[in-house]
């Protein structure tokens, strides 16, 4: 029915699609963290991409130091995620919250986090070297369904990041902390009046977003290597997903993440990887001109 070439092309395309889906799931996780921190604290974090690499490097250090025999990635998650939480919490408390007193604090925070991004990027280069580091796959082997081949790694990445998103959504909707976070996002003054400790919520939100992006970093670095200078590109990516999906819309972010993941995989496949960021940028400009509130965001 089909010629040999067409079938090969179809298989290749299905591979690209799968890669796009597993990348997209991690993008969704990252974009969610970004929406969260911007929606609640109104602080724009330029060092977001460097926390992604921080997760990757922490995991890499553990694997180099301990090896995988102590429970593998489960141990890594148990050790690294609280560390990231601590880093994020301290960052908010000591660096960002003192700026909130100033009149132009939004711009000051952007400058501060940009400085932080430069600091971390260069620190990674000095400490770990400019060479790319790789993490071992979370699960080896492949799953064959008929003629299609899925690697367990892709499936695990997809499931874990989706699990992370669901857990996050559940926490936000069903726990007291989650409700407090939503209250602060809706009306900081009102939240203060009913006795919510805004400072702590801000710091916790920032820390949770750090954990989410760091978790994404551990997952995606298995496929893409850890690149010390990639922080800026990752931050832009997370932000484009957020803007494309619509600020503050979790469902929009999910849809946008998968669209962008697949788009990026196909652009990379057809034109080469370095064109990914150009495609993203065109998409961002197009979104902002045609539909500034994003796919599913609510208008101003």
């Amino acid at each position, binding site marked *: 029915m089909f010629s040999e070439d067409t079938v090969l092309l179809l298989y290749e395309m299905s591979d690209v699609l799968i890669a796009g889906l597993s990348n997209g799931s991690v993008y969704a996780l990252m974009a969610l963290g970004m929406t969260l921190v911007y929606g609640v604290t109104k602080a724009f974090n330029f060092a977001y991409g460097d926390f992604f690499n921080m997760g990757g490097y922490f995991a890499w250090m553990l694997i180099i130091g301990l090896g995988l025999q102590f429970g593998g990635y489960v141990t890594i998650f148990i050790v690294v995620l609280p560390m990231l939480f601590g880093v994020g919490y301290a960052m908010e408390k000591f660096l960002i919250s003192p700026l909130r007193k100033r009149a132009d604090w939004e711009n*000051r925070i952007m400058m*501060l986090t*940009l400085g932080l991004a430069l600091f971390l990027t*260069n620190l990674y280069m000095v400490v770990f070297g400019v060479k790319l580091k790789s993490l071992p796959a979370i699960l080896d082997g492949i799953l064959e369904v008929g003629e299609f081949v899925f690697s367990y790694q892709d499936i695990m990445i997809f499931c874990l990041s989706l699990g992370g998103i669901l857990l996050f959504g559940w926490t936000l909707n069903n726990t007291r902390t989650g409700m407090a976070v939503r209250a602060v996002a809706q009306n900081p003054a009102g939240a203060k009046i009913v006795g919510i400790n805004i400072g702590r919520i801000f710091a916790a939100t920032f820390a949770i977003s750090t954990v989410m992006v760091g978790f994404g970093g551990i997952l995606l670095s298995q496929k893409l290597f850890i690149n010390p200078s990639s922080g800026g590109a990752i931050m*832009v990516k997370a932000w484009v997903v957020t803007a494309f999906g619509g600020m503050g819309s979790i469902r929009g972010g999910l849809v946008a993440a998968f669209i962008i993941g697949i788009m990026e995989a196909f652009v990379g496949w057809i034109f080469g990887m*370095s064109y990914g960021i*150009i495609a993203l940028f065109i998409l*961002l400009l197009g979104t902002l001109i045609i539909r*500034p509130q994003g796919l599913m965001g609510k208008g101003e």
Partner: protein
Amino acid sequence: MHLRQMAAFIGISYGIMALLPILVGDIPFIMNILVMCLIWAVVASCWDVMMGFAGIFTFGQVAFFVIGAYGSAILAISHNITPVIAIILSGFITAGMGVLVGLPCLRLAGPYVALVTFGVHMALQPLLKGEIGLAIGSGGAAGLLTIPPISLFGYEFTSSNIIPTFYLILLISLACVLAIMFMIKSHWGNAFLALKDSEDFAMSLGISAFKYKLMVFAVTSFLTGIIGGVYGHFYGVLSVRMLDLDLFSILMVMILAGGLGHFPGAVLGSFLVVAGSELMSPLGAYRAVTMGALVVFLVLALPDGVMGIFLKWLNKDDSANPAGSFSNGTIT
């Protein structure tokens, strides 16, 4: 800050700069550093005007600088245009790019502007390295290596006869900085102050935010493009490595050290930071780390930079109202 104080400040800074070759004129290494001071002073001032004065939070100034440098170099190499004309043309090209980036940006809110301009910066490197860049003559990843020096009336301003070149660049740099000063203190400048203090009220008085912000985009990118072209012709080589984050962070430190939104501060900041950065060169790879840490430190601890300290000492009244706001109901 009053116009007279501002002019005096710029005059003293550039005057000291103009006298330095008497002391160190025969040491090419130091003269090169001084030329760098002059060039970064313009870029940092343009960026400061955009961020601190016009309130447009852009991260694209380095990209405009690179566009100007590449534009002028490509015109001179591939199209055999005299460097002086090429520099002016590339200023207009950069201004055009500035308007092109500014048009979508001005409809957006704060972080989106920062993001789009940062995106321009991020997208420029693959563009210049890739096929599109090669097609317009950017030299790809290797960069441009044979950029002709500026020549006027048959005299070539190269780095081998550094002293005349230094004074030429000093004049260009001074002209750019004075242009910025007059812009800030003109009718435009007042319009910006009004827009920054209350955009709604200013618009109700008939000041078009869009028009003025687009004009500042055009003017600052024009000046950045011009100085970028001068940089390319002075150095003779260009590569996309300029778009790495090193230059970005060092410019940021200059603005912050000088004082964000305190105009001549960025000039002083760039003179101080270039000198400081050279002093830090024994740190090697840790220099970039220090620069990043310095940004964080300056934002937290010294929000008004050196200029803030200077203003406090100069005038108690002005320090209560940071430069750029209506002090005592009058605009001076």
